[in-house]
């Protein structure tokens, strides 16, 4: 196709006073004033007038892109859409109630042996019995103390290390390889070694917790610290801040919400490790209680302990989340 057949292929005007390109360009020098209501003739003709040149519009060698049928209006929630508060609460309640109902019906129907899946009522009464005898509280206290101590030690080591790695190139180069390697060694595999080194007492359990948490928390803290926009660091320098002031007044407040988030994730890991440690060698603690109950096939007791572990973990999570939202109000 060539440009010469433009006048022939130019489409007929859709509206009476809308003229083809050739007519418009011929008319414009003679009559600058257009007939009433028509488009300005000095303007180049619209898309209709250009169509057909060199195959496609504007000389392009292709037609218009294929069109898709528009999406049907849907009542389903859109991606990224928030739900209304009442709906949210209904969904939250369902999230707990549905598994509970499944549990109740499964154990009530008799499809599963009571020894394997005790009924919620049996679990509750086992929990009440344990609470009454006082063993639940002493075991919980043993585990909570171990988690608290081990987690604090791990945080006290990992936050400065991660801070250094995230903010200083030399610390990153020095620590990244060794921590990246240690992180892949399963903490549980250290149990025999720890027992040989530290004996069966408290210290070996706390050491396991520290090993399980410290490397991940270091790397996650370093990631958070590294994300600080460089222009914030630069502008701090031009406002007269020294290196230690930048660390304290700029990097720390910027990274604090993310550091709490990292601690929140790793607090869950700490609970895993304390139970693992107590499963292997202990005379108290929730993990120890589970092994004891297993010996006497008391699945209801195991379930009760699991529920207690879950509730404590949830409490820690909620508390850390509240702390995060308090210090990170600016980030939302």
């Amino acid at each position, binding site marked *: 196709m060539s440009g010469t057949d433009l006048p022939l292929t130019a489409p007929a005007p859709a509206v009476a006073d809308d003229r083809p390109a050739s007519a418009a360009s011929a008319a414009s020098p003679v009559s600058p004033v257009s007939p009433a209501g028509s488009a300005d003739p000095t303007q180049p003709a619209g898309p209709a007038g250009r169509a057909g040149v060199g195959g496609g519009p504007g000389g392009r060698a292709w037609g218009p892109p294929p069109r898709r049928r528009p999406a049907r209006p849907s009542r389903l929630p859109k991606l990224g859409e928030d739900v209304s508060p009442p709906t949210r609460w209904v969904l939250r309640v369902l999230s707990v109630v549905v598994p509970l109902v499944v549990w109740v019906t499964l154990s009530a129907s008799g499809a599963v042996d009571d020894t394997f899946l005790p009924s919620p009522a049996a679990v509750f009464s086992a929990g009440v019995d344990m609470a009454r005898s006082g063993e639940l509280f002493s075991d919980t206290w043993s585990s909570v103390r171990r988690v608290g101590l081990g987690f604090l030690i791990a945080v006290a080591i990992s936050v400065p290390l991660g801070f250094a790695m995230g903010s200083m190139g030399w610390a990153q180069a020095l620590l990244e390889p060794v921590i990246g390697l240690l992180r892949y060694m399963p903490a549980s595999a250290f149990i025999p070694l720890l027992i040989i080194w530290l004996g069966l007492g408290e210290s070996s359990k706390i050491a396991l917790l520290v090993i399980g948490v410290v490397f991940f928390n270091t790397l996650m803290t370093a990631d958070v610290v590294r994300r600080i*926009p460089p*222009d*914030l660091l*630069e*502008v*701090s*320098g*031009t*406002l*007269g*801040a*020294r290196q230690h*002031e930048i660390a304290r*007044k*700029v990097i720390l*407040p*910027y990274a604090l919400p993310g550091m709490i988030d990292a601690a929140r994730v790793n607090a869950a890991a700490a609970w895993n490790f304390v139970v693992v440690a107590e499963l292997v060698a202990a005379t108290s603690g929730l993990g120890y209680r589970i092994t004891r109950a297993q010996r006497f096939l008391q699945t209801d007791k195991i379930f009760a302990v699991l529920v207690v572990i879950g509730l404590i973990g949830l409490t820690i999570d909620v508390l850390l989340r509240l702390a995060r939202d308090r210090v990170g*109000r*600016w*980030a939302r």
Partner: protein
Amino acid sequence: MSGPDLTKTPATAPAVPAPTGEGGGALLLRGVGMDFHAGRRRPAGAPAIPTLVGVDLAVAPGEFVCIVGASGSGKSTLLRLVAGLIRPTEGQVTLDGRPVEGPGPERGLVCQSGALFPWRTAAANIAFGLELLPMPRAERRRRVAWYLNEVGLEAYGDRLPGQLSGGQRQRVAIARALACEPRVVLLDEPFGALDVQTKEDMQLFLRQVWADTGTTVLMVTHDVEEAVFLGQRVVVLASDPGRVVADLPVRLPAGRDLGTRRDPAFLELRAEVEDLVRLHHRAHTSRLAATAG
């Protein structure tokens, strides 16, 4: 090269007495060059041309100088050299005769993003530099209030940056730099991200702040109109390598307002600078095309 503008009309005095700083400092760049790859193996594909070569520039105390140039001509690099964030590979930058060796509060910096501390309120952002000085809390609060008032944000002191508009954020960024009473304020396309109307307000505001504080201003922009409207001098930077190709005095009345933009002298200088920027930008792009082809 012109001295400080003595014909500048005094600004309407704010209610609180103005800062007692001694005004602006004298900035001098002598043969400044910057090659980011100097002394290192040049990465494959990196141009063999330094970013800046032989930049000589003198800014008198209290002067307002604008640097224009196409994108990539090294404007930000030049400003970062003066700020002390990077060290030149050639030549020297001095402020009041003392060589610049690192960033410091006597050279305030405002960048396009504003770089406000998002966890600090507007007032706390302005207070940042003062918190680092041995200064009683009451005195600090008095100064912060003065600068909040100066930038027209006295009602917004408690807002976080996320709750401010783009123009308000830039005002806070300017106030934060000014609160340290710098000898020079360095602005890197401070209004580049603003809409046209806000930008116009901010330009008038910046002239006012400059008149009130008497500080030296070195501003970088790619907007020729803005440079001619604001500056007492316009310096044109060309790319490949970045170098000064023109240094033109702006002969316009000191009290600039929206009418200035229709002044024939303004229009003439704007056209001249635009032509210069375009000429060097075209030369740059055709050199790029030649090396690519």
